[in-house]
């Protein structure tokens, strides 16, 4: 009973738009004889999906690895007590950073006129000549790492903190040194959290719109930007079905990824008791 306002709110402003999306995606159209849902995953549109998946996968993988090492490193710092505090707080901000400010920052650092580009050229490293630009595949991946690594940190920190010292000590008593402790105890216990973190990062990268949009040229191939291309404001491009279909596929992918994430999270929580 008390959940009625919440349910109504979520239903009206989240569920209903999502359902409408699917309704619009499967709606028959005159100028095409195959369904938009089918068309959205064929030809160049399929390439866009694969490109986006590739980028999301790579940025999630790198983000997960770097983020895990960052967490492990921060866990080992006890002495200046403010280090962990500072990294946590900064990660909270950076994980939610994106869009225009982030693109600005990277353009100012690594753009053709960027500070770091210039500094590297002093040392004889020609970043642009080497084919790097902030808006190609590698560039976007790098920019995404700016919010992916902190997100991974935030997800894994509680898991690392949940590793009880008694587990390490019990393992040592039973004959497992540091290496065997990590192989048999530490990593297996962290595994659900790490894998879950990777999935969350993947979903995060796949659905990032603002950053992709701000890095215009290279971002244009990414699905979120493609969706906007077909459904710009209130104008009718004639291919709006395709935009809806892409968004629908995106939600389907997110349901799969986030579902797996929630399952892993549940498992990790169970072990913590």
């Amino acid at each position, binding site marked *: 009973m*008390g*959940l009625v*306002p*919440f349910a109504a*709110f979520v239903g*009206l*402003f*989240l569920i*209903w*738009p*999502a359902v*409408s999306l699917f309704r619009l995606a499967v709606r028959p159209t005159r100028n095409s004889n195959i369904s938009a849902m089918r068309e959205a995953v064929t030809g160049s549109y399929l390439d866009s999906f694969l490109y986006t998946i590739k980028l999301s996968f790579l940025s999630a993988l790198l983000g997960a690895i*770097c983020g895990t*090492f*960052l967490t492990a*490193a921060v866990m*080992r*710092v*006890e002495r200046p007590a403010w280090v962990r505090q500072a990294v946590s*707080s*900064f990660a*909270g901000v950076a994980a939610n*950073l994106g*869009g*225009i*400010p982030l693109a*600005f*920052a990277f353009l*100012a*650092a690594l753009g053709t*006129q*960027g*500070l770091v*580009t*210039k500094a590297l050229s002093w040392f004889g490293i020609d970043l642009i000549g080497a084919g790097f630009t902030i808006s190609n595949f590698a560039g976007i991946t790098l920019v995404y*790492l700016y919010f992916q690594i*902190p997100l991974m940190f*935030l*997800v894994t920190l*509680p*898991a690392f903190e949940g590793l009880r*010292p008694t587990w390490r000590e019990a393992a040592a008593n039973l004959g497992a040194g540091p290496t065997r402790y990590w192989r048999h105890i530490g990593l297996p216990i962290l595994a659900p959290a790490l894998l*879950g*973190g990777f999935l969350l990062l993947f*979903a995060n990268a796949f659905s990032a*719109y*603002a950053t992709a949009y701000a890095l215009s040229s290279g971002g244009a191939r990414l699905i*979120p930007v493609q*969706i*906007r291309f077909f459904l710009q*404001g*209130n104008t009718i491009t004639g291919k709006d079905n395709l935009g809806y279909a892409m*968004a629908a596929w995106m*939600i389907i992918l*997110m349901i799969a990824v*986030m579902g797996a994430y929630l399952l*892993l999270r549940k498992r*990790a*929580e169970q072990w*913590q008791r």
Partner: protein
Amino acid sequence: MATLTNRLKTPLWAWVVITLAAIFFVLPMLAMARFAFQRVPVALLGRNTLFDRWTLDGLVDMFRDPDFRPALWLSLRISVLTVALTLLVMLPTALWVNVQAPRLRSMVETATLLPYVIPPIALVVGAGGAFRDLAPWFLRSDYCLVPFYAVLAMPFTFRSLDTGLRSIDLKTLIEASRSLGAPPTTTLLRVVVPNISSALLGTIFLTITVVLGEFTIASLLLKPTLPLYMSYSQGRNPQGALGLAILLLALTTLLFFAATRLRRRGADRKMIRIGAMP
């Protein structure tokens, strides 16, 4: 009994990792700040010009721009309304889940994570399709952003409120207040709210950071909010735009710091779960 733990020395690799991370995360910010506040082209930047021509002119020009104020006010008004809507919907929900139906908590919590399943770009596209025919007036209003922003903030706001409520023994508090003869409204306003004031404040701050950072929905619905204005003015006044980005970033950081500080003070550490959503 308290065990005295081994003081392990921080190994070198940990410092290397942290230093590398610090460089990666600080450099772009420094570069942005230099671009925003220094009028020296990168090509001419050298040892002699490093401290030349630092200025706030870009930012000042931006404040003088006639389009700036309306964008600022719009974002502020939307912030206030989003905070109000969030408290109106999420506080009763969090209370209900904590007092009446603890068994439904995990279900509600999962529901609050739905914005991760339906990302902003999909949400705005679907909302456009859903409301265009039925309530076109809704999408025309600048305030149509409010409910969507409240939805986007949901994972943060519910968690923040729920953690605050869980750290106090809510049920006992309410029963005690009632047994002393306080009517429900008095109980809510004079017993519950003061006890979760830090969680409430944290929730408010987090909501504002979401509003000040949101770009996707405003951009697709063509609403001239501050982030959108920032993006448009990039061509006319790049220095001002970057300066504004830095200002917003600083403000967001401040709000976020305050929110996490408050949360830490108000909440039991054990409540922070593994795999916590940021």
